[in-house]
């Protein structure tokens, strides 16, 4: 009966109540249990919504990323895009943004623990992004103050270092001067005083000894002062040499830049001469297809340009199979690009007014009713033949109308059919044996025979043809597929390890499922 524990009846009960759940119809029985649970929540019921829970590790990685000072300077859109490309879901990204407040970086783990609890409470309410200040209020001010200072320090560290060195040098020099002027005379006078007192009282030996000690002390003090002065001078010299080094460095960098520019221009010239098109300017594939502005209208995005620049370095080396090397463009394409970049307009463009002459005229009525799609009538995969036949017979009249669409009596498909089979058998070609077994095509369409795929005359020949194909032509693909299998495995393993093994079970199971499916379902047209 219709108890809540029964999966199918309960889902049908839910259907009229919740219009959103109609999207759950075509899912398999396996999914029905999760669907019921999904329907109980208010919003995500369809398969096309991410139903994974928030992964804490990913969120923390994202928080570290967002807290980085360099990232703070970039637009929010780029930060989101980066996290999305790393595989984080929307909820995880929103959570990370929530945890990272704007003014101060949340580096301290104590802070993150506190905000973690707040974040969890807030995320369960499924609200929009809240101002990050609310989350920070419960945290103590002390760590915030110190971390802010550290933040400032971490930003200007290079500038600060130079300043500190200068400060040290100046203070060293100052103390040296101080010692020379103030302390040493004082020491001397004190020593003389002591010496004179001793003179009055004691014997000569003591007098000799004391002034000796005093003299030694004075000499030591002088030496110390001199050493300090030397230190100050040395640090000053270090400063000077450092600034000189800086200058030399900058000169070196300038020279290198000049050299690289020259090299780039040389390579451009060489490539232009050779007529090739692996151009340093536009190498990423879609950048090449982007329009170049004549005056103002169409400029490639600046970030796109950055991509082009970064990949231009890559393209100078021989293209590796993994990297997307730019396809060589036709010569006239490069000519047109060059023309446009010079500011010229190609001469074959006409002025055309393509505005609608009568934008308010009502749309005419269609002459045909929409036809059902082949996948709409059947539920099972690959069993389209029988149902397609029945569809065809019911739509015979439509096809009859369709046929009189300016055609001759015998559609060109039929006429072509004979020649096609001849060509196919006579001309053993690059593609493997045509193996579509849909030869029992329906003939109920009025006078129209759908073009038959050429029949396999000799299966043994087809197989034999395929063998050398495999060895010569498709072997590369096999190698590629094998290597990609290996790389896929590696990717999968790294992904699993990255996600902390949480996806492991799912990944494994789905992998098994998808591997089993091919053998069972597609035995009809699987090639051997």
């Amino acid at each position, binding site marked *: 009966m219709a108890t809540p524990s029964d999966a199918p009846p309960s889902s049908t009960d839910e259907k009229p109540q919740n219009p959103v759940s109609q999207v759950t119809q075509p899912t398999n029985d396996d999914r029905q249990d999760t669907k019921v649970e999904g329907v109980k929540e208010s919003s995500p019921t369809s398969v096309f919504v991410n139903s994974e829970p928030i992964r804490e590790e990913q969120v923390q990685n994202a928080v570290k990323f967002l807290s980085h000072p360099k990232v703070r300077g970039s637009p929010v859109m780029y930060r989101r895009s980066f996290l*999305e490309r790393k595989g984080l879901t929307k909820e995880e990204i929103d959570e990370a943004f929530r945890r990272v407040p704007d003014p101060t970086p949340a580096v301290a783990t104590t802070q993150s623990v506190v905000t973690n609890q707040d974040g969890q409470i807030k995320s369960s309410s499924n609200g929009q992004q809240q101002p990050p200040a609310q989350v920070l209020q419960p945290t103590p001010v002390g760590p915030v103050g110190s971390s802010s200072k550290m933040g400032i320090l971490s930003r200007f560290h290079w500038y600060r270092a130079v300043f500190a060195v200068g400060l040290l040098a100046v203070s060293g020099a100052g103390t040296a001067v101080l010692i020379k002027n103030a302390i040493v005379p004082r020491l001397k006078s004190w020593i003389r005083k002591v010496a004179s007192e001793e003179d009055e009282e004691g014997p000569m030996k003591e007098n000799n000894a004391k002034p000796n000690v005093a003299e030694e002390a004075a000499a030591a003090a002088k030496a110390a002062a001199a050493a300090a002065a030397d230190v100050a001078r040395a640090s000053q010299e270090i400063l000077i040499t450092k600034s000189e080094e800086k200058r030399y460095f900058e000169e070196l960098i300038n020279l290198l830049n000049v050299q690289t520019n020259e090299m780039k221009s040389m390579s451009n010239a060489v490539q232009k001469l050779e007529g090739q098109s692996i151009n340093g300017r536009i190498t990423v*594939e879609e950048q090449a297809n982007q*329009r170049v502005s004549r005056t103002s209208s169409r400029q490639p995005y600046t970030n796109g340009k950055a991509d082009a620049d970064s990949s231009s370095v890559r393209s100078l080396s021989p293209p590796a199979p993994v990297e997307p090397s730019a396809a060589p463009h036709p010569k006239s394409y490069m000519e047109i690009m060059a023309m446009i970049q010079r500011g010229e307009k190609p001469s074959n463009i006409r002025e055309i007014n393509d505005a609608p*002459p009568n934008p308010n005229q009502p749309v005419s009525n269609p002459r045909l009713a929409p036809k059902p799609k082949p996948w709409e009538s059947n539920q099972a995969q690959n069993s389209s033949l029988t149902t397609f036949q029945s569809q065809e017979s019911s739509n015979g009249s439509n096809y009859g109308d369709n046929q009189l669409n300016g055609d001759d009596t015998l559609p060109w498909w039929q006429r072509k059919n004979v020649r096609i089979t001849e060509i196919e058998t006579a001309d053993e070609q690059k593609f493997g044996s045509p193996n579509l077994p849909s030869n029992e095509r329906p003939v109920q369409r009025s006078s129209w025979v759908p073009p038959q795929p050429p029949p396999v005359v000799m299966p043994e020949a087809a197989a034999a043809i395929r063998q050398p194909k495999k060895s010569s032509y498709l072997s590369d693909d096999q190698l590629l597929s094998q290597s990609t299998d290996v790389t896929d495995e590696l990717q999968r393993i790294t992904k699993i390890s990255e996600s902390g093994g949480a996806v492991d079970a799912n990944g494994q199971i789905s992998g098994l499922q998808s591997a089993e499916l091919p053998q069972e379902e597609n035995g009809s047209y699987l090639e051997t």
Partner: protein
Amino acid sequence: MPVFKTPFNGYSVKFSPFYENQLAVATAQNFGILGNGRVHVLQLGPTVTERAAFDTADGVYDLCWSESHDSLIVAAIADGSLKIYDSSLPPAANPIRSLHEHARECHGVDFNSVRKDSFLSASWDDTVKLWTVDRPASVRTFKEHAYCVYSAAWNPRHADVFASASGDCTTRIWDVREPGSTMILPAHEFEILSCDWNKYDDCIIATASVDKSIKVWDVRNYRIPVAVLNGHGYAVRKVKFSPHRGSLMASCSYDMTVCLWDYMVEDALIGRYDHHTEFAVGVDMSVLVEGLLASTGWDELVYVWQHGTDPRAP
């Protein structure tokens, strides 16, 4: 097999969902960099003849047939507008509508095959817009991608679900009833140029990328692709699932070939056609005729052939 030479470089080809022997071709002058465009409506027969041609001021990057009206075509224009043409009216009465809201080039357009009343436009201004034929303004704007959106594709079974492929290396799945995207698939490390749904398994989606591969994903378990199809020598420009066989798909690439794949099979590449002499940019599989393929490229040629035959054979 019939071949048609277009005056401009081909960008997209689509079979009509109403007539087996009609197809429409989108072309742009000067490789689409700068120049005019033209929409051709072709009639297949012993030779290919042109039923109608519509000129545009700017290149046409993509087009789609209406699913509810047998002679309406929606074209995505490089100046950011969408133009609707009625091929039953003379060229002087066309276009019947011009919808201009995108700030940058319109690169992809797709018509809803379930509800048959609305269509999507994907643009280089990072947005996807939802339109209906009868309204002069867009119904929804979906703005989440961080870079150009190259293509959008409706789910063949769920009337409100669609996917978008973008240069920010992600594919997003949207539900028009929700304010934002419902899933984000970081499908590739490089720009994704095209995506398409499996017509027989509504949770399977294929993405084609600049990294020369096509990946097939199951949205229920989207961390790991179901299959990775390598074999193209350069970026894969378009991927299209077969309307007749669940795991069959066609793809065209800048390596000038059109390939057929079966991702359920160990050796997935089951056909390769290298009839084009420039980038192969558009490919389509007919819904009404099983196994019929059409392709176009920058070599200004449109080929229509049956799978298993040579496209260049007369």
